[in-house]
């Protein structure tokens, strides 16, 4: 109980004093996760739409694989990305290890299956509704996918937000590939892990509260953006 109260107090203090380090790691958290989610959406939304629109032999296998990948432990992803980006690994020359880019790569791997899977679910329903119309109108495969993505945008926002939620709270993978370097790759989650390790529960909790607030703000902002967009468009 004391720890909880101290946590709220710590969060409050960090926020009102605009703690410079807090701002830095919060911005890095946002930058890494938003970039990763944007890339995951660029891959996952068309992939989900494609899986909804296209009938091919291994479709079920691909979907099952996608759903299985959602459960992939982030630590394993982190380890594999580490081995890829390590100086002794195949992409070592790129010198990406322990940089925000490496963290983005890991998060893209973690988040894309989730985004693609949720997008696929949503667009499969929409496709069932639109199927006859779009076939009848002779829409090309690309036009079908584009229509599904555009008209399913609210469900796709949910997919993106689910991806954001998973990525912003992820610690195992980015700890390994980012290294939690102070001033370079430290983000909210790795800072929380660090402070927990130091036994500074109040600060860890305070950072956790900031993290939750951030997730709420992003989710709220995107829903608000969607609503204003709807009023304008319809």
């Amino acid at each position, binding site marked *: 109980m004391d720890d909880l109260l101290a946590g709220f107090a710590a969060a409050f203090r960090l926020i009102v004093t605009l703690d410079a380090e807090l701002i830095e790691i919060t911005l890095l958290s946002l930058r890494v996760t938003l970039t990763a989610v944007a890339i995951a959406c660029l891959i996952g939304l068309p992939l989900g739409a494609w899986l909804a629109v296209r009938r091919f032999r291994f479709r079920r296998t691909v979907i099952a694989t996608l759903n299985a990948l959602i459960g992939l432990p982030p630590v394993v992803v982190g380890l594999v990305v580490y081995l890829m980006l390590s*100086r002794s690994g195949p992409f070592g020359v790129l010198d990406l290890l322990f940089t925000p880019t490496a963290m983005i790569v890991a998060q893209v791997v973690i988040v894309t299956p989730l985004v693609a899977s949720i997008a696929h679910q949503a667009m499969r329903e929409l496709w069932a509704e639109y199927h006859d119309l779009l076939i009848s109108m002779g829409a090309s495969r690309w036009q079908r996918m584009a229509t599904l993505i555009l008209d399913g945008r609210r469900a796709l926002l949910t997919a993106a937000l689910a991806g954001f939620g998973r990525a912003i709270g992820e610690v195992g993978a980015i700890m390994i590939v980012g290294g939690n370097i102070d*001033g370079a790759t430290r983000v909210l989650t790795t800072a929380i892990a660090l402070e927990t390790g130091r036994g500074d529960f109040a600060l860890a909790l305070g950072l956790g509260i900031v993290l939750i607030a951030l997730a709420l703000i992003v989710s709220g902002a995107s829903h608000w953006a969607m609503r204003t967009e709807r009023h304008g468009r319809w």
Partner: protein
Amino acid sequence: MILALLLMLLTTLPASAETLRMAVTTSFDASGLADILLPEIAAETGIDVQLLVVGTGQALRLGEAGDVDAVLVHSRAAEESFVAQGHATHRREIMYNDFVLIGPVSDPAEIADAPDAATALARIAAAGTPFVSRGDDSGTHKAELRLWNAAELSPEGGWYRPVGAGMGAALNTAVAMGAYVLSDRATWLNFGNRDDMTILFEGDPALFNQYAYLPVAPDRHPHVPHDRALRLEDWLTGPRGQALIDGYTIAGERLFTANATPREARP
């Protein structure tokens, strides 16, 4: 506006000119000494040291892979074989701190008046009171295993709990269980969640914990900035670095003793 925000988020922060990646053990980072040393290093040598805080095993793996430029750990045997295998150019002792045995103030195994560390551990084993082990192949874990070895015991049974975690996590577990645990002094002094736990045994030379600096061999990994690693070594072993190490205290207690070997000793 949103576009500008995105652009700001996407553009990479410019990396400062002279960075050096050094893998260090959790105990070194948790001591808080890094927070004192790093700004001084940056100011005096212009090197921006980026710390990768990991276990000894992982620190050496990072050095072996060429993912860091230098390693600062405390596990002599492992360090020497690291150098022997050609992963580092040499090994340079920097400083030492010590391990302490932490336990509940009630001290159910009565280790406080033990004559030496081995006896203290033997009493814990005999009493069967819970003991939390790092169990993560870290320097601290290896030191603990050496002590059990010295006591001619192989820790086994329900009372012995290897957690496979870092020092902080192991301390959190021990506090929650009211268990004994071996910790480096620095981490314990900086640890916030002590509850009713305290240092019960300390001072045996067997608990001596030597830190050494290992610059990654440039012939293995030509990309490492070896000259920068040597400049950092010179600073750490020089008068300014050694004085800062000796002068670092928490709650009036000195944590580290600087004991760098003289410069001529470098091969």
